[in-house]
């Protein structure tokens, strides 16, 4: 803090610093329960997986640069293509948006000092890391999953895929689901119960609405995937008959359960991006978001309706039309909440006073890609159209416009936007803009021609294609685009790394943001807020009187909560102050428990049932150890 504090206030701040002091070194990071440190762990791990997924993408594009290439053998192509999807979805986009952005920012935005369950938070991270290493162990031992990211039976059954590759997939995804489920539960309880008193639902930042929607979607979608993977493993390892048509089973059962998970999953992917966009736009247009209640509602509605559209991934499998129309109808209406948000963003941009700095450029790029990707998506809601273009590159174009253009662009913009807050340094603006343009042009060049080549009939997931059919030049452009895109991303990484060491020192609020994280120092202290903030609108940083009241409160010693590792809990709807909670500090139990779970899954994979039971017992013991230490004792 740069303002001089009177001695009383200073003494309170010093006390907070002492109580919240964090262990340093490797041991400190392994036992941390601080949401900010956990966010950073998630960030680096998911960026590493992003790199892996990116390499896989470049391998695919290099293989497809021209007909009949042999960069990748057919088997290698199948594994690369599968791992590209699995890595990007389960090991990059979900962890970076929920684990990195969500973890770091949600407690700050609601005026809390940590998540509701700090040890569970750490546990989510270690389980995520374990699941990623687990799946990649399969890849590096020559048994990488190879039946596509949606792993349809019967290709994934033991008959057609006898090795352990699919077991790495199925067990790995169940393992990964534990991490995401724990994180989702943590977010919901945090957002419901830990908001600063006064932050009723109508005053909660839109970013938090997006994460509330994401978390509820994860809670209800992941069990379907886990059940599906359990069925698959039972069929493969114990000879069950879920997917065996000759014994009363059904291969479509896999597809139904998968897409009951899979469609909400893609809304889970896009919603954090919506949240980031709705945070960046008000800051850089210097006005409030148009139609706040409708945007908040739209975020939740997209997730909710998204549960009812799953069979639109199955329009071409032979279901009767009276069944599929339910899903076509819902698929057409699900576009409306997204459109509400889009119009709100555009209106805010047009009626505001925009400052075209790097974060806003990424959001504008996001809007462009989202419009195009959304339009190609809504076209698929028409069953006849879908049946012509299913399994062609038109689908690939649609979802890459959405997943890369619309989900990842705001993440990259968010990296720039919150970089000063997290590191205390400013990024280089010129290099930032260049990295945006390279990535934008590269993405357009990579993914747009896929619409055309898909309409011309090029099927997806094929390791090569014949010459002379008219697809060659499009594929060439796409590969060139992919390399340009990669260059843009490399430049982004270089910018952030160099700026971390040599960037200008950043102040608390370099952009004039509206939400509470901009009131802390850059980076924030371990206790986030010396005083639990006073809140009377959804744009707290723009309420000057409230921020002055905070300073007065610090001087009076009100809502400082410095008697222990303390933070307030309030009621769900109106955030009435309810109790003062003691939070646990550093603990070894999260990582120990995660290690035991890794052991359980490894033993299931290798078929050592006795060892699995040993790990199960150890897992129970570590849970007991964890819960034996009550938060006030930690």
């Amino acid at each position, binding site marked *: 803090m740069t303002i001089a504090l009177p001695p009383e206030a200073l003494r309170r701040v010093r006390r907070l610093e002492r109580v919240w002091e964090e262990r340093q070194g490797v041991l400190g990071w392994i036992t941390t329960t601080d949401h900010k440190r956990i966010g950073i762990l998630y960030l680096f791990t998911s960026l590493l997986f992003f790199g892996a997924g990116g390499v896989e993408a470049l391998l695919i594009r290099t293989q497809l640069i021209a007909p009949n290439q042999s960069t990748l053998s057919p088997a290698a192509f199948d594994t690369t293509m599968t791992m590209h999807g699995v890595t990007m979805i389960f090991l990059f986009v979900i962890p970076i948006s929920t684990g990195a952005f969500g973890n770091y920012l949600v407690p700050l935005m609601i005026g809390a000092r940590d998540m509701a369950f700090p040890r*569970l938070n750490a546990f989510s991270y270690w389980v995520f890391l374990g699941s990623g290493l687990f799946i990649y162990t399969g890849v590096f031992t020559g048994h990488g999953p190879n039946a596509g990211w949606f792993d349809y039976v019967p290709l994934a059954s033991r008959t057609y895929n006898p090795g352990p590759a699919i077991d790495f997939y199925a067990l790995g995804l169940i393992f990964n689901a534990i991490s995401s489920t724990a994180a989702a539960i943590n977010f919901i309880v945090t957002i*419901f119960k830990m908001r600063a008193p006064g932050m009723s639902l109508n005053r909660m930042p839109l970013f938090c609405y997006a994460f509330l929607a994401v978390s509820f979607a994860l809670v209800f979608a992941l069990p379907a995937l886990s059940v599906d993977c359990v069925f698959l493993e*039972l069929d493969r390892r114990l000879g*069950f*008959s*879920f997917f065996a048509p000759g014994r009363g*089973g059904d291969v479509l*059962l896999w597809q139904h359960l998968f897409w009951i998970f899979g469609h909400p999953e893609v809304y889970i992917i896009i919603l954090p991006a919506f949240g980031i966009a709705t945070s960046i736009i008000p800051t850089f247009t210097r006005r409030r978001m148009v139609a706040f209640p409708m945007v908040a509602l739209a975020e939740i509605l997209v997730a909710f309706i998204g549960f009812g559209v799953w069979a639109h991934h199955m329009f071409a499998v032979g279901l009767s039309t009276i069944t599929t129309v339910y899903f076509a109808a819902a698929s057409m209406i699900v576009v409306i909440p997204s459109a509400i948000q889009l119009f709100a963003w555009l209106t805010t941009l047009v009626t505001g006073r925009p400052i075209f700095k790097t974060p806003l450029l990424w959001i504008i790029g996001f809007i462009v890609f989202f419009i195009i990707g959304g339009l190609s998506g809504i076209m698929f809601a028409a069953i006849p159209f879908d049946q012509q273009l299913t399994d062609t590159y038109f689908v690939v174009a649609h979802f890459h416009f959405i997943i890369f253009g619309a989900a990842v662009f705001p993440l990259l913009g968010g990296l720039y936007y919150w970089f000063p807050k997290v590191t205390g340094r400013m990024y280089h603006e010129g290099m930032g803009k260049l990295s945006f343009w390279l990535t934008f042009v590269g993405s357009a060049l990579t993914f747009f021609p896929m619409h055309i080549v898909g309409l011309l009939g090029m099927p997806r997931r094929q390791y090569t294609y014949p010459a002379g059919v008219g697809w060659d030049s499009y594929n060439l452009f796409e590969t060139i685009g992919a390399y340009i895109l990669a260059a843009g991303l490399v430049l982004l990484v270089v910018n952030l790394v160099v700026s971390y060491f040599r960037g200008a020192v950043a102040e608390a609020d370099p952009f004039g943001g509206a939400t509470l994280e901009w009131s802390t120092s850059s980076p924030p202290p371990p206790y986030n807020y010396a005083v639990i903030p006073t809140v009377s609108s959804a744009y707290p940083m723009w309420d000057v009187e409230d921020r002055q009241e905070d300073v007065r409160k610090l001087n009076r010693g009100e809502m400082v909560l410095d008697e222990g590792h303390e933070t307030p*809990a309030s009621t769900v709807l109106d955030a009435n*102050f309810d109790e003062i909670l003691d939070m646990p500090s550093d603990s070894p139990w999260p990582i120990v428990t995660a290690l035991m779970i890794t052991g359980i899954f490894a033993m299931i994979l290798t078929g050592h049932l006795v060892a699995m039971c040993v790990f199960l017992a150890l897992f129970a013991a570590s849970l007991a150890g964890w819960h034996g230490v009550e938060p006030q004792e930690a």
Partner: protein
Amino acid sequence: MGVPRSMEATYDSAAARVDRGRLAMPNGWWGAALFIATELTLFGCLIATYFYLRFNNPHWPPPGVEHPKVALPLILTAILVSTTVPIFFAVRAARAGNARLTWLLFFVAVLVQGGYFGIQVHEFLSDLDKMSPHDSAYASIYFTLIGAHHAHVVVGIAIELWVLWKLFGGLTNYRMIGVRVAAFYWYFVSFLAVAVVLTQIYPSL
């Protein structure tokens, strides 16, 4: 202010007072509720799979497989559901600050639930002798659904054993929440027992 520092309630009557004075449900309760939501969804998927496969098969159960028993499963389920009564009163006792009565009522519940589980294991193994998941989707979903429920009963018993162990040291705010979570979990398992048993005996209805 009147707002308590909840974690400072480290003895019986203090913990009870904090619990009664709260406006909202405690964080631990919310966490348990959401976890239960995921498990409910899981069982929803299992039961939906049961009926999906049923629609997929002209004969259900398939030829050669006998119809499920009706009486014994229903009786066992009724016994399990009845343990929610001592559990309900255990929570009331805890909220009144009476750790000993809470302990006793949970102990009674655990004994009955343990007996229930033993009989169910016997039934499960004897069913396996009569039909195999290798032979039919019916058997596959039958054993998976019922096995999943039994696994949840085991977890519930483990949670209660943990609560019983910790209650030797009296009630604190943390343990009070633990008692409420254990009870909530058992209400959920009992509800599941009814849904699962109805699905299980459906072909004989």
